[in-house]
């Protein structure tokens, strides 16, 4: 699971008003090299929650991403590369995503999150 994916997942358990972002518990992180695509990154910047990305990347062991970001920073190659690395190249292979309100744990196995809810959670 890339952090781009993590950035779009939320907990929709019954009664939860804000299930985003899911807290990450790491068991196995894998870094995978991905082609650098500035246009794609610029499009994605507008769509993601930047703060959640920064927090998640720190938990995954990458501390280079600045705390705050403005769209103007997308012109800087240095920032774009850090953004690219955090968003696209850090993969959670094994671990858990945790609902911020209920503490409910969603497993991540072989990079695939299981977000199925139980009967009493819907």
């Amino acid at each position, binding site marked *: 699971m890339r952090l781009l994916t993590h950035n779009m*997942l939320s907990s*929709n358990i019954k009664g939860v*008003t804000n299930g985003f972002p899911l807290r990450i518990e790491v068991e196995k992180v894998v870094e995978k090299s991905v082609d650098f695509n500035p246009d794609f990154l610029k499009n*994605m910047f507008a769509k993601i929650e930047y703060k959640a990305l920064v927090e998640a990347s720190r938990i995954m062991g990458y501390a280079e991403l600045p705390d705050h970001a403005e769209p103007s920073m997308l012109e800087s190659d240095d920032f774009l590369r850090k953004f690219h690395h955090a968003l696209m190249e850090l993969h959670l292979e094994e671990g858990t995503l945790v609902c911020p309100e209920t503490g409910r744990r969603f497993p991540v196995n072989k990079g*695939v999150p299981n977000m*199925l809810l139980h009967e009493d959670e819907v």
Partner: protein
Amino acid sequence: MLQILSTKQLTTRFIHTASGEASQGMIIGCIHSSFWSVSSFAASNVLGGLTRKHITLFTGCPLPRDRFTTSVQGARILNKKEMAVRQASLGGVDVDLETKTNVEKLKRGIAEFYDESSGIWEDIWGDHMHHGFYDPNSTISLSDHRAAQVRMIEEALKFASVPEDPMKKPKSIVDVGCGIGGSSQYLARKYGTECTGITLSPVQAERARALAAAQGLENKVSFEVADALNQPFPDGKFDLVWSMESGEHMPEKAKFVNELARVAAPGARIIIVTWCHRNLSSSEQSLNPDENKLLDKICDAYYLPTWCSTDDYVKLLQSLSLQDIKAADWSEYVAPFWPAVIRSALTWKGITSLILSGWKTIKGAMVMPLMMKGYKKGLIKFAIITCRKPE
């Protein structure tokens, strides 16, 4: 009297049986009729529970019997927060416990069916688990079917008028009921953007991930095990919401449509391509008993809940104030598909793979002639319904 038939003879006779022509002493015929006496019993027990109970939609309106729609007036798309508040204020249950249990059984059945069957499908047909789109009355060779499956995707996008202009094309896509990711890969490549797919089957999600990685698309497509009726996304996330032949699995059509609309961004297009039954005339309250009997058999083998009509979907979309709603019957464009699948199942490779795969897959294969029968009678429709979420 049993005869030893060649594969070609078997295929021809199998298809003729499906079309209702009489035949005797056929190997397949014998298996077919004994199979149904066992499965009808199972079907009536599992699905009877679903159809006889009232299902209260998120709007709080009880459903008329056998229909998955309601005369909803002034309903609107509930966002996550509203759904949570509503569920809390209703005391927690929108559906009674027996129905909930049946829905859970259905979902498990769907997951297990695809866990078991995906491999064999992929082996013979590739990564698109949907019908091909064919010119009516054309003759097709097996190799043309893959092109037809790709054409189905393109025709659906065209029908929905999804923009291709770089400024207006979709920038984020969700594939609801993604299978092994055939559509997700295609859409991500076509629009050069990211796509995420959800499926109930862990085997499919894992396979989808591996296939995408093998195509160098790992950075563009992702997959999660998740429920289309409770999508794990915040509101308004996607510019294109894609449901290619997954709607027929959804036990609560209103909830399914609400979720599609909820995760759609303002201005997004929603595309539903699905199996429906024929529209009811104004004097009809339901399909006739023979029609229900046929659909029940198919439901049992493919883990489908009660069917609805194209009109039902249109009414649901209208009730949510979605715009540019379009619907069409594409049954004539998919007619060559089931005979082709049956032919592929009756090859040496098909038969041996089926035997090795498991009972659920075999059951699914046995039911294929019924799909053809349903289409031929005008009972089963291959429908496309699309719309746009207002800005």
